[in-house]
């Protein structure tokens, strides 16, 4: 498979999904991939195969909840939304991501 775009770094998928749902409200899986791709200006690409297992795991962990609904095209889809627990998790992950990037940046700048 061609890898033109950056596959999402292991462990950051949860962060991106939580952020997406926190900002844009309830969404189905396909919309989440599209949203991430769109917002990252096509720099990030969600590997579709890992998205659904991740969504399920996050739901089991209580970060997300889901229910079935109908899209504008009248298709049945499962809509995910973030829970309060998920918002706390998002804050944690944002903070640690910031620490990581700051660290990496510093190394790139000064080392």
């Amino acid at each position: 498979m061609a890898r033109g775009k950056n596959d999402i770094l292991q462990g950051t998928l949860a962060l991106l999904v939580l952020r997406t749902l926190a900002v844009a409200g309830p969404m189905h899986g396909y919309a989440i991939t599209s949203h991430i791709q769109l917002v990252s200006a096509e720099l990030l690409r969600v590997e579709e195969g890992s998205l659904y297992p991740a969504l399920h795991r996050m739901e089991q962990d209580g970060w997300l909840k889901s229910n079935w609904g109908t899209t504008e095209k009248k298709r049945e889809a499962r809509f995910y939304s973030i829970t309060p627990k998920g918002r706390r998790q998002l804050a944690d992950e944002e903070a640690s991501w910031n620490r990581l990037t700051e660290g990496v940046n510093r190394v790139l700048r000064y080392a």
Partner: protein
Amino acid sequence: MAWHHRILNIFRSNRISRDIEREVEFHIAERMDHLRAGGISEEEARRLARQQFGNETAQRERVRSMDIAEWVESVAGDIRYALRSLRHSPVFAIVTIASLGLGIGANTTIFTLLDAVVLRPLAVDRPDELAYITMSTTGKSGAGDYFTNPLWEQVRDRQDAFRSLAAFGETSFNLTDAGEARHVVGWYVSGDFFTTFAVAPEAGRLFTRSDDVRGCGGSAVLSHRFWKREYGGRPEAVGSVIRLTGHPFEIAGVAEESFRGPDVGREADVYLPICAQAVVQGPANTLDNRSSWWMRVIGRLTPGVDTRQASARIAAIARASYESAVPQHWRAEEQREFVTRTFYVRPALKGFSDVRDQYGSALLALMAGVALILLIACANVANLLLSRAQTRHRELAIRLAIGADRRRLLRQLLTESMVLAAAGAIVGLVVAQFGTRALVALITTPDVSGTVSLDLALNGRLLGFTILVATITVTLCGLVPAWRATRVNAQMAMKAQGRGVVEGHTRFRLGKALVVAQVALSLVLVVSAGFLVGTFRNLTRLDPGFDASGVLLATVDLRRANVAADGRASLHQQFLDRVRSLPGVTHASSSDLIPMGRGSWNDEIIIDGFTPKTREEGVTWFNEVSPGYFSTMRTRILAGRDFGTGDVAGGERVAIVNEAWSRRFFGERSPLGRQFRLRDRRTLTPPYTIIGVVQNAVYQNLRATDEPTAYVAQSQSVSPVATRIIELRTNGDPRSLIPGLRTALASVHSAVTLDFKPLEQQLADALQRERMLAVLSGLFGSVALALAILGLYGVTSYSVARRRNELGVRIALGAVRARVMRLVLGEVGFVVMLGIVIGTVGAQFASKQVAPFLYGTEPADPKVYLSAVMLLATVAFIAGLIPAWKASRVDPIEALREQ
């Protein structure tokens, strides 16, 4: 993921699968829309969408990984892995499983008995409602539990504390009318007996109150086991006639299988109502005897009445009951004391049990012993696992280094221990099946009074116990090695490559500590065995005051022979005369009682000039014997003469006393020619003149060899008994006399019933508990010793193998081989010494626990400790010698080249 989610997912898995499918379907549809919008054909769009999504099935599986199936699968994988790795080291597997199997099996064996005898409530409906009435203030079982029939009838008719109250007394019945007797255990039970225990009939009917009325003809109820054994479980048995000690009884019914009666370990074969005693024993029955204490009373409390309230209610009727049942022939002061006695009601959840009284504490001691054995076996297995982990050190380090989860590795190693323990538990259950049978055989005597009947079938409790023991075993011997094995610093482990010149000792300390513990624990068991085996030896070597070898006892019972009381003596004399001439018989005599037999006779002695300080001091044992009794038994006559033909009925009454008797009443003076009388109810017998003194001989209790005993002449018997015992001495096997004896006795009178038993057997039966303790503690001690030595040998060999490099260097640098041996042996010595010191402390505690079982040895006897320590040290030295010798043979060149 949390385990409960996994479990919930099992139930949800269908829904989840469907959900996932729908979700994926939706996703692909959306993707296809998107692609088609870009101008791609439907076919191509579908293909691309699918390709981009990846393998759908794999996807679904990944989502479903939250399923328990995956978890079970990975556990199964661990088990497969464990089995594979055990298959690769079969010796390790066999040694481990065998030692765990023996350890667990021994524990299950003893627990099976402990459970059946001590722990389990009676197998009847709501046993917690049962309570018994006793006169004993202590709560210990004993004489105070026994009632006379008149007293029982008083209590039965007056009480209101029990919904249902029953009495029972044990006896034995003879199934044959003549010839050699076949005894079965018989119980006389009151009418409410089966109602009290809520027993249902297996066939026919059980007794009700109307079966137990004075003057009844009587009918019989069979136990389920007797019915199976004797009648093959045929229903026609009910209604047929069974002859018990010569009297016919109709079989009314059979009790249900689960019912074994309230006396744990003793079960009736045949039940008769109490009133039937008059049929079986005729005028000799004890139904109106006010001083024949032979029945126990147990009942089911009235709802809402507890034992304390019941005690008060029963105590309230005590005075009236005792007054109506006072033994009329007792002296006035004894009668006055009698009526002031009272009753107590105590819970009878577990019933009565002589077996429990006799073996309960012994079983507890044995339980402690087998627990120690399991600990020692555990230590061995832990050591094996430790050294196994050592060899897998690098494998584990690599797996950790490439990212394996430590918990995952831990689980894998523990799975291996669990597989071992499970296999050990299965072996243990098989061992226990044989063990319990062997153990029961060890405490059962051949005659009917010694039969032990217990429910030893495998049940939930035993299975639970075995699983518990196996789990403890895994935890003890698996957890620490697994924990240590996975606590490797990956880098260090890889760097060290197991080739350091000097092996670090830290990792090894645990192994040695385990051996110290093993030595200590085995010393405890060896010392206990020393005491118990010593006790048994003391008791077998003890001079009972007679020579049991070559003596056959023949019990001749005339009760069935229809001989009038005044004809008995001469008939018995004919028997004796007849057997004297049998080939092979060197001596023959007869007596009323035999040493350590079931019967006994004591009476109060009155001697002019002797005032007993207590009533007990005036009471001594008695026996009635024929001339030649002492020479047959080889009891030495120390002074005076034996009974002779001149000692006839009507002549001067004569007696022979033993040394203890003489010392008690006459001190150092000679008793010959002195006279005594017996108190016979409220009168005194005519005087007996002492004509001889014999050495002390055991009367009833083997541990008491110096009980004052007086012998009187059978030829002068006032009321000859129907049953006498003939003693025959032969130079060969006493059993070889039996066939000739049987025909000879039958030729004198055809309707006698006979019982044969070598006197040595009689002695052996009296030592049953001691033999069991000696055999088992000896076995435990040896097993413990062997396991500990195996552990010591393993650890030492392993340590030598690890230190090959170091030893090679030492030898290369000029260390003398003897010095290398000393080095290794020194280490062994240290470990053993430490174990012995700790073990000595433990053994002191243990020997205090076994003290009640001991005879002829003190629990502090230093000789026992010293020999145990010597034994352990010697064996340990030999076990250390082999690795030490190997260490000294290390070839320095080879050892160093291995680098």
